[in-house]
């Protein structure tokens, strides 16, 4: 026993053990209590139950059975896919991509303009300019907070069923996304080069385009790529309310309970999103690496 270098039996020094828990104040105590109450209250309201999940096994089995029929009945099944169907679904998948791409592109352009107008002090600091900045900021907030399905319903009402409504939806959604993050990126850029240009007679507009935008460019590009990924994912569900793309077929197939066909489409969607995300991720990494190399 005596060969231990630390003698824990030394009674006299044991009074100064550090406290195991920090003392918490009354307010903190109540905050923790409120958090616990909120968890319980939310679970109750959300009707979450393991029972319900377990009870649904038979439906689950039926769905899986119909969604993935055994190879044997393939070909004689009423839902079996012909080449014609495959081409149609591919065409719709391409349409989804086109919607997402066009919508994102337009959204980036308008989002950039709105971001310029809403960035604090970028194009001016006068009272009317500040009013414009606040107004545009509120507009961007509106674009961003209203969910895309709601926009889709509105645009289907305005321009009718089809891809155009979907494209407009993605555009508005992207304006909201890019408008906010472009503005943040431009506000975060080191402003001293811009100030330097202004101190030798350049206008705010000059300083913005000659100094702020070039410096923010890597951020603007990666945000745009993120926006495109988001748009590809979003564009799939827009079909559910009739705003074009492959989602319309998916919705119809679910309504006919043709789960096996629906699975094929989900697989195609998965492939599209996977490819787009991989390419986008590769490009984003390229952009950031390119910046790191210089510094």
């Amino acid at each position, binding site marked *: 026993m005596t060969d231990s270098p630390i003698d824990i039996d030394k009674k006299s020094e044991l009074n100064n053990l550090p406290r195991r828990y920090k003392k918490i104040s009354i307010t903190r105590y109540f905050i923790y209590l409120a958090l616990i109450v909120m968890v319980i209250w939310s679970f109750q309201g959300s009707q979450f139950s393991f029972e319900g999940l377990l009870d649904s096994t038979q439906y689950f089995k039926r769905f899986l059975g119909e969604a993935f029929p055994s190879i044997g009945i393939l070909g004689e099944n009423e839902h079996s896919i012909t080449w014609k169907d495959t081409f149609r679904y591919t065409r719709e998948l391409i349409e989804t991509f086109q919607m997402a791409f066009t919508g994102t592109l337009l959204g980036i352009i308008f989002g950039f303009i709105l971001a310029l107008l809403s960035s604090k002090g970028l194009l001016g600091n006068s009272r009317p300019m500040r009013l414009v900045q606040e107004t545009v900021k509120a507009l961007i907030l509106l674009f961003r907070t209203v969910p895309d399905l709601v926009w889709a319903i509105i645009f289907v009402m305005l321009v009718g069923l089809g891809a155009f409504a979907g494209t407009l939806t993605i555009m508005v959604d992207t304006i909201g996304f890019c408008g906010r993050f472009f503005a943040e990126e431009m506000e975060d850029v080191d402003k*001293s*080069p811009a*100030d*330097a*240009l*202004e*101190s*030798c*007679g*350049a*206008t705010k*507009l*000059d300083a913005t*385009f*000659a*100094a702020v935008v*070039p*410096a923010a*460019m*890597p951020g603007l590009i990666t945000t745009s790529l993120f926006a495109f990924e988001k748009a590809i994912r979003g564009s799939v569900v827009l079909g559910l309310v009739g705003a074009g793309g492959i989602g319309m077929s998916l919705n119809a197939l679910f309504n006919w309970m043709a789960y096996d066909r629906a699975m094929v489409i989900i697989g195609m969607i998965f492939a599209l999103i996977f490819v787009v995300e991989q390419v986008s991720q590769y490009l984003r990494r390229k952009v950031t690496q390119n910046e790191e190399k*210089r*510094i």
Partner: protein
Amino acid sequence: MNAIEVKHLSKSYADFEVLRDISFTIGVGESIAIIGSNGAGKSTLLKCLTRITEPSQGSINVFGDPILKFRTGALRRMRSSIGVVFQKHNLVPRLSVLTNVIHGDIGRLHNVSKFPLAGIRNWGQISASNRTRKKAMEALEMVSLSHLALQRADTLSGGQSQRVAIARALMQEPNMILADEPVASLDPVAANDVMSLFYDLCKNKNITLIFTSHNVEHALEYGNKVLAIKNGRLSLFKDSNSIEIKTLQAEYD
């Protein structure tokens, strides 16, 4: 006509007085070194001269013009003829050296052209006129960096990037250059190189040079006159030939 006439200049933030009743006159083509300890008010004084900071009281005449009475447009015209060089160089990092130099010509082009917004051609070297590009290359030649024209500004060494900033200031065809601790971020050798190049360029083109420095040797060597600020007051303004190093070092006590 004098390059600068400052009379009874004061600047205070809330209840803190940074500059107190400062008056001096600088002739055309002179080179002035401003010294003083940190927080003495050197940078504030420099910023007041182009109204980047608004003075609280007093008057400033730049080449005879009462600049405190200028409104936005006139102020911008005045600024476009005054080059400013910063301690941090303040180049746009992701753009080429040539584009950064051409940026110096934005304000001037706004003024000389009869077309509104003419200066936006100079946002990048791609869109600038051949005349401007040639002028920028000549400015780069003067600081012997023309071989780096298409290199990105963030790949330069400290000395190189400050020389690019000087070329950018020369692009303005300025009659005066204000430099706030232009070589403070450079190593001693580069600092001497850049400072003597800077001084020679200004002398050759009869540009009035006003620079701040913590280096008293630089102040004596490159300033025809030395202006010292202590606690916001003008404590010394003399011909550098008649000053000893010890006197200047005393300004830091």
